[in-house]
């Protein structure tokens, strides 16, 4: 994937030079700011990706983002649509239409330096020389009386006006620019078959009108059609029908209606013939577009549209279009989705796509992603990856991760990142048995197949996609030789924010030198504050205290040797009763590996889902309860976290789920069990 993507810019450039034959770059959007329009109280996407893939749940405002861009740059949008209505004003704006709201949409354009035509067209709108950037701003604001305060209430649309201006303060007239850099949206709910069959709505019309067949061949064809129709009319059956009809008309309407019924199949007028041209989808001209699948019709429609835009560009009637395709996945099966989308990415340098499809999100470049989601006040905010800096290797890791169908991370409400398959099975099951259905709440458990969480933290962090997430990892305190190394804490150290990191590193060092005389719990608790949840040892060992019954059941189903079953059961129960023997831990892991770690986790999950863990947890819950009641300065949530991590080896998993529960459900994991409120 990464290899293909790295060649992409060159290919795109090559194509473009072929397309329009001029030197210099191509215009693209480099920043967007929307204020008080529809879903957006204040949405800024800066930098705006060269090709943008906009993802987000239904109703979050993907189409409205495109609509906002149309207001600034679509020449086909009627002027009346720029005079906004009350329903266009963001519900979360500080004031509404009646109180004098101001709507602003700013679009920055860049990448055209050296393209003389574009430089000339955009002169007067420049806001930066390096890179050369032009800004167009749409304002919608109330008219004002002079020397009077703006009226505070009771305003209607008639009291408003709008402008489109260029430059830093938007003071140069820039309305004309939408004819130079038109923004075209291919809507999601389109009737491709219908549009193609009506001449006036079909993109074919302009294509043929711009490049019509020669007059000679049109006239020749018209003559031949006329001849053919004459030939047909000679058939006695037809002339009978026409004679009968003629007589009936004569009787019905007399001579006053002069109609000569005649039969044919196309106009024999050369000019009308052009409009009679239809598209067929096979060489025998039997199947029309209507006879193909909706999917094929949509691809044809898109192709015609692109062809039309490229035609306009070639004839210089426009400088360059910026194309947006809403939900290209509509009516297309996944393989075709990827194929079409890859083509668009390669050939349209200023492309915007909005999508629900993980298939499309998966083939998008990381820096193309723009994630729309509701912000804290309810209005939509954007998170995107174009700002983050990653090393090439990390970049590749992330793209590979997204490519292998895990793009759902973009559509989730929260993510739990784990290092292996076992956690992927066990964590959702554990949550479910505690009454927290992760699927239902849009929480995904993502297996990063490794322990380098850093790039994922960057990707999901506040400065990029801003997806709420926690990281769950093993403690791995000792090496195979038995030396203390605390790998889990080391991993966490990389994720701790800079001001606290140095101290955290030092404390790991002293923990290592203390060997077995000190507990790792205080450090693990601190890591949890940074959303990194570390087990004391290894998943299977740590959960034995809680899931012993289910572990035994799962192992029994997989292990045929009675002798080995006994060994496993002994190890589980030793751990349950608090054994710290490394021999016991090793035995347990040997047994699990013997039946395959993955299969064991699958079986275990099945049993855990059905288990009643509440009774097992009673004593822990009551401890949590006591802690939570303890009147100290920290919050109830912090006290719950501390109790969980301090009192049980499996507590870190519960603590992670508690954190996620608060994020997506608004309350902690145990509030339903014992009334421990997270106040």
């Amino acid at each position: 994937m990464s290899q293909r993507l790295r060649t992409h810019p060159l290919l795109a450039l090559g194509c473009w030079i072929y397309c329009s034959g001029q030197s210099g770059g191509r215009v693209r959007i480099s920043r967007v700011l929307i204020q008080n329009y529809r879903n957006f109280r204040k949405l800024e996407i800066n930098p705006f990706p060269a090709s943008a893939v906009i993802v987000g749940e239904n109703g979050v405002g993907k189409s409205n983002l495109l609509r906002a861009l149309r207001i600034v740059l679509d020449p086909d949008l009627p002027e009346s649509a720029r005079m906004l209505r009350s329903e266009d004003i963001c519900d979360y704006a500080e004031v509404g239409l009646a109180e004098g709201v101001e709507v602003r949409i700013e679009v920055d354009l860049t990448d055209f330096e050296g393209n003389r035509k574009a430089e000339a067209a955009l002169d007067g709108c420049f806001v930066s020389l390096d890179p050369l950037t032009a800004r167009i701003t749409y304002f919608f604001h109330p008219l004002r009386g002079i020397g009077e305060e703006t009226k505070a209430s009771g305003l209607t649309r008639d009291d408003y006006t709008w402008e489109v201006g260029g430059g830093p303060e938007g003071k140069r007239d820039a309305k004309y620019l939408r004819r130079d850099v038109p923004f075209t949206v291919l809507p999601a709910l389109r009737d491709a078959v219908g549009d193609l069959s009506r001449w006036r709505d079909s993109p074919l019309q302009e294509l043929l009108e711009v490049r019509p067949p020669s007059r000679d061949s049109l006239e020749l064809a018209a003559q031949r059609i006329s001849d053919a129709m004459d030939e047909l009319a000679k058939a006695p059956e037809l002339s009978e029908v026409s004679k009968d009809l003629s007589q009936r008309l004569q009787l019905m309407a007399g001579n006053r209606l002069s109609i000569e019924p005649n039969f044919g199949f196309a106009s024999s007028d050369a000019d009308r013939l052009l409009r009679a041209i239809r598209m067929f989808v096979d060489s025998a001209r039997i199947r029309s577009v209507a006879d193909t699948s909706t999917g094929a019709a949509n691809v044809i429609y898109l192709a015609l549209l692109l062809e039309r835009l490229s035609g306009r560009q070639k004839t210089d009637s426009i400088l360059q279009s910026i194309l947006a395709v809403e939900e290209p996945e509509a009516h297309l099966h996944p393989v075709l989705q990827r194929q079409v989308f890859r083509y668009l990415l390669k050939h349209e340098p200023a492309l915007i796509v909005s999508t629900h499809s993980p298939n499309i999100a998966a083939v998008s470049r990381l820096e193309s992603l723009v994630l729309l989601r509701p912000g804290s006040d309810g209005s939509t905010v954007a998170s995107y990856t174009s700002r983050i800096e990653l090393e090439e290797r990390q970049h590749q890791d992330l793209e590979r991760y997204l490519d292998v169908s895990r793009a759902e991370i973009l559509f989730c409400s929260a993510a739990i990142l784990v290092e292996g398959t076992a956690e992927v099975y066990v964590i959702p099951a554990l949550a479910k048995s505690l009454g927290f259905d992760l699927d239902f709440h849009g929480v995904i458990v993502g297996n990063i197949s490794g322990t380098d969480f850093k790039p994922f933290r960057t990707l999901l962090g506040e400065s990029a996609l801003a997806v709420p997430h926690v990281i769950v990892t093993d403690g791995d305190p000792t090496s195979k030789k038995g030396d203390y190394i605390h790998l889990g804490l080391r991993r966490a150290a990389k994720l701790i924010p800079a001001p606290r990191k140095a101290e955290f590193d030092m404390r790991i060092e002293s923990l290592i030198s203390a060997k077995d005389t000190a507990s790792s719990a205080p450090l693990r608790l601190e890591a949890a504050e940074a959303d990194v949840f570390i087990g004391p040892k290894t998943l299977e060992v740590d959960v034995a205290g809680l899931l012993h019954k289910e572990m035994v059941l799962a192992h029994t189903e997989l292990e045929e040797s009675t002798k080995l079953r006994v060994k496993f059961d002994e190890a589980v129960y030793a751990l349950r009763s608090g054994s710290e023997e490394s021999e016991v831990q090793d035995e347990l892991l040997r047994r699990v590996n013997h039946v395959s770690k993955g299969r064991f986790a699958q079986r275990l999950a099945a049993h855990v889902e059905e288990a009643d863990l509440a009774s097992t947890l009673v004593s822990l819950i009551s401890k949590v309860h006591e802690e939570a009641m303890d009147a100290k300065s920290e919050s109830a949530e912090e006290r719950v976290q501390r109790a969980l991590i301090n009192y049980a080896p499996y507590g870190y998993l519960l603590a992670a789920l508690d954190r996620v529960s608060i994020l997506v459900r608004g309350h902690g994991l145990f509030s339903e069990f014992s009334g421990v409120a997270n106040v």
Partner: protein
Amino acid sequence: MSDQKTVRPVLAAEIEQLNPAQRMAAMHNGDLVVRAGPGSGKTRTLVARVGYLLESEISRYRGVAALTYTRHAAQEIVDRLDRLSVRPGRRLTAGTVHSWCLSAVLRPYSYLVGLPSPDESKLVDDKSGEWITLLQRCFDVAGALENPRYEKAAITRLRRRIAAGYEVQADDPMTQAAILVDRELERRGWIDFDAMVSRSLKIINENPKIARLIVSRYPSLVVDEYQDLGPVLHRLVVTLRDEFDIQVSAFGDVDQAVMGFTGAEPEFLNELSSKDKFETISLPLNYRSGQAIISASQAVLNESRPYQATPDREDLGSIELAYVEDGGLWDHSNAVMEYIDEFLASGFPCHQIAVLYPRKGPLLDALLYAFKQSSHAYVHEGDESLPRSDLTDFIRTCAARTFSGFQPIGSLAEKDASDVATLRGISRRYAELRRKSGLVELESRACDALIAEVCVAASWGSSGDLLSWLSFMVETLELKAVANASNRIGDSEDLKLFLDRCEELEITFEDMSSAAIRAGKVTLTTYHSAKGREWDVVILPGLVEGVMPGWRWNQRMKRFVEPSGRQLSQDRMAFYVGLTRARSSAVLVFGDYWEGKYGYVNRFGISRFARDVIDHMSAQ
């Protein structure tokens, strides 16, 4: 929607920032005279008024005609309105009086009253050889013995008075010649700028229906520099207003009527002022000069005016009196150089210093000599050093844009980039030039690309060499072909002269753009050309009777004679204009005598204007 008059927020904010008098002028409902002294923010007020009229007073199907003295001023109105988000399109016609007469009267209506279309006429400039030849012929027929070359202003004044219906001495050969000029132009199918206005007035006088159509389209007429616009336009304005109810807003300053030699009279503005239902508003605040300079300038006028410096201004400005004792104009010029040294040393930049002279003659010769001897960089905007025409203005505009870079950020101007055209705008002007010359029309984007090629190429930056840029642009834009085929007589010669002068005078990008942005040099220019501009420091040398005010040589009496009342008041206004250009310092260099062409000493004493200032200062 309420009855309250509302406008776009940007315009509302602008009007609120005006001072009370300016705001009253901008929002007055009815006929209006605005008396705008030096530095009073006249253009700003005028632009606000035009914006206000368009936005809230006039039906959106009708418009405003804004008439200015120069094309540049008209463009300034459109540009400033654009920055206030007022983009009226066809509703606003901003242009010179001639261009408005052409586009609003002659083009649409000539055909309807049986006159030839102005576009079929050949446009002759009164500076061209053809025009002078025509004038010579008229002189011959009328029996006028004067040399037509020196009587252009007199003829213009007479033609205007005749067209405006004033009584003239019918038996005077000069009057006869003036009448003949218009007849001869018509007979040959030619038209000049004055004829555009006088023919328009004729159409309006003879066809009330057409006058009503014009007023339907432009219910409001805004006129800038009213005092300089002459009797024909005045008649036209009064007719449209008195008989057809056009609303008039006239902006001007009777003290700055420097175009009197063409028949313009400050009285026209006073006449409007005294008409029924005309409101007169004076703009009293002078945003430019310190109080010392304002007071001194009023002493020169010998009349009291309500002008004052802005109240928050601390520096009074200074008037420096430099008496050249027992010295002539050469000594004046040396004193000027010393003053320039001092001002530079105290931190004023070169381009903030101007040296003004009244007219060609011994003073200019001495100043040029002194400048050449000195180390000062200067630009001499001699009235005719670079020929002016649509085509040469176009070249200057290109140079200014090339020099300034991408708009609106790339700008070397001190205030804002308002004067720098955009590539699109230049491209449209170029297309218009080509169209007028009948050259093959270029597809608009190809035209854009060509202009961008000329004005953007990185090598033509401020360090670029103007001359090679000029030859590149003339070549690329086929300007020689444009000039050759132009319908304006003399374009080809003007272009050649323009290019030769640039080479001869070693003109740089800065100089070339100086009409649009300030140059990095001391400005040497005439009192007339200084109008409408400002500098930190203005130096006025040669304040000797005979030079300023000028005395005329009387052939019969074989001596210089004192100027007549009108000539004197002309020079007084010019001096007033010069003095009021200064923001912080005005230097008056005066003496007792001057040397004539052959070294003959003329001793008529210190200039009376300088004496007025000296008396005023010693009285304080």
